[in-house]
């Protein structure tokens, strides 16, 4: 998917994450992570975010994640929702998100 606009998904509530995706044309993927789990789960969260972006075919994006104790499933859901919004895609390829 091509990231056309800036878009966010998620909240700042406990157990959730606020994910923002911005265009980064030709600049590859950049990822910024903040939150209380970052010291102990930062690598896991980044890995799951990169995997989600690549499964959606997102090659260029500037992604920031503000987590409040979100589990991987929540990180992935917030990221895929933000990507869908930023790419203007309504019909999500659920198959590739398995």
């Amino acid at each position: 998917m091509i990231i056309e606009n800036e878009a966010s998904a998620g909240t700042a509530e406990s157990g959730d994450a606020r994910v923002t995706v911005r265009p980064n044309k030709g600049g590859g993927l950049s990822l910024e992570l903040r939150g209380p789990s970052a010291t102990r789960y930062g690598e896991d969260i980044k890995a799951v975010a990169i995997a989600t972006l690549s499964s959606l075919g997102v090659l260029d994006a500037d992604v920031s994640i503000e987590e409040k104790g979100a589990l991987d499933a929540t990180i992935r859901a917030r990221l895929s929702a933000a990507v869908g919004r930023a790419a203007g895609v309504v019909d999500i390829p659920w198959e590739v998100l398995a």
Partner: protein
Amino acid sequence: MIVNAVGRAVPAPEGGSAGVFSRASERAGSKVYDSLERALDAVGVESGMTVSFHHHFREGDLVVNAVVDALARRGVRDLVLAPSSLTTAHAPLIDRVKDGTIRSIRTSGLRGPLADAISAGLMDEPVLIHSHGGRARAIDSGEIKVDMAFLGVPACDERGNANGTAGRSACGSLGYAMVDARNAAKVVLLTEEILPYPLGPASIRQDQVDAIVRVDSVGDPAGIGKGATRMTRDPRELLIASSAARAIRAAGVVREGYSLQTGSGGASLAVVRFLREAMLELGVKASFALGGITSQLVRLHEEGLVGALLDTQSFDLDAARSLAANPGHREIDASYYANPARKGCAVDALDVVVLSAMEVDLDLNVNVITGSDGVIRGASGGHCDTAAGAALTVVVTPLIRGRIPSILDRVTTVVTPGESVDLLVTDRGIAVNPRRPELRETLEKAGLPIREVAWLKRLAESYTGAPRPVEFDDRIVGLVEYRDGTIIDAIRRPRASAL
């Protein structure tokens, strides 16, 4: 033989004069000073002394900062600060450590910016964390020699009789302060109101008090306590509480005349509600409830379901009011509560205690002092005292907080050793200490979901993944004392990169 001042022949005292009787009785109001400065002049302060405080005003406390600032202005240095606990209200003490006013701190709890700064290496000497019982032991035995106790009270009379139930900032029990008042070389009361003599009951007594200072405010009422502690509505906490109550009941504890203690937060407090239902159903009453008293326990007492309330700390204004109104609601000091070194303490009479935990490990050791990032943000309180004393010790915790699992291979810091924990109750099952096989069998027969601790840990990690360990350097920023005075663990400084 000599003839004394009233003309009687009496044996000559050795080296004493026999002519004049002391007329140095205390004149009304002679202890009362119109400012803290004057009181400090009168009692005489010096560098290096040990000063103590209590935390009955909790987050609202204004006394500690005001007194330490006043001592700093006089150039007093190298204080040993020995409050019963410190909270987020005490962030200003960071500057008093930096300027050398405070050299050392011993406390049962430490939270907020001061705790963060100490964790990051603010102090040269490690902070000493002790339990409520351990503190009472150390002070009663003289291990901690308190040179001066500065005790905030909502009201006292002009001779120094004080309690926590009179006055507009009523905080209820003065249980921690009572130990300081009876042991400190000098006692200074900071009071909001001076009421007519004799104020009673006297939790702190005129014969203990050297000086009285009237101040505008000892604490911010909003921080001292809410009207009533609110029962949680969080379904997870209610689930944990109801499981804990089922386990306690299945263990045979809920019988006529049993005794209980529960914490003040979340699931632990909610256990009271489910035990109440069990007591009504079984038609039994408890003989006493111990420790921190909440509006929920007051209600049970007033319903006749709990005989006596033994109160070291009133957690809300309902409890403070009840302490004044209900004869069965009794104030006890921290030594009566939990001092392990005297001839008896109330925790040893407990049938069941329900305690919270920040972390529990495979050996059931409990951490209630450092967070998942290794930073100090908790309180030892009566945790290890009640765990050691109670016949059944129940630790309640959700399996996961945010993304952080509560059950680990090893807790970051041990406050309460696993051998004094009988049950671990989570939202996903109950683990029984392997030392209690008969208890496990009883609970299994009752149909409770019994799991191994290791199983619970694996389940937690199936959601969260295995956490990377917190990295510490070699600098020791805190020592955790067990109730008997032995050091049970050391708190190291988390690596700066981790913070």
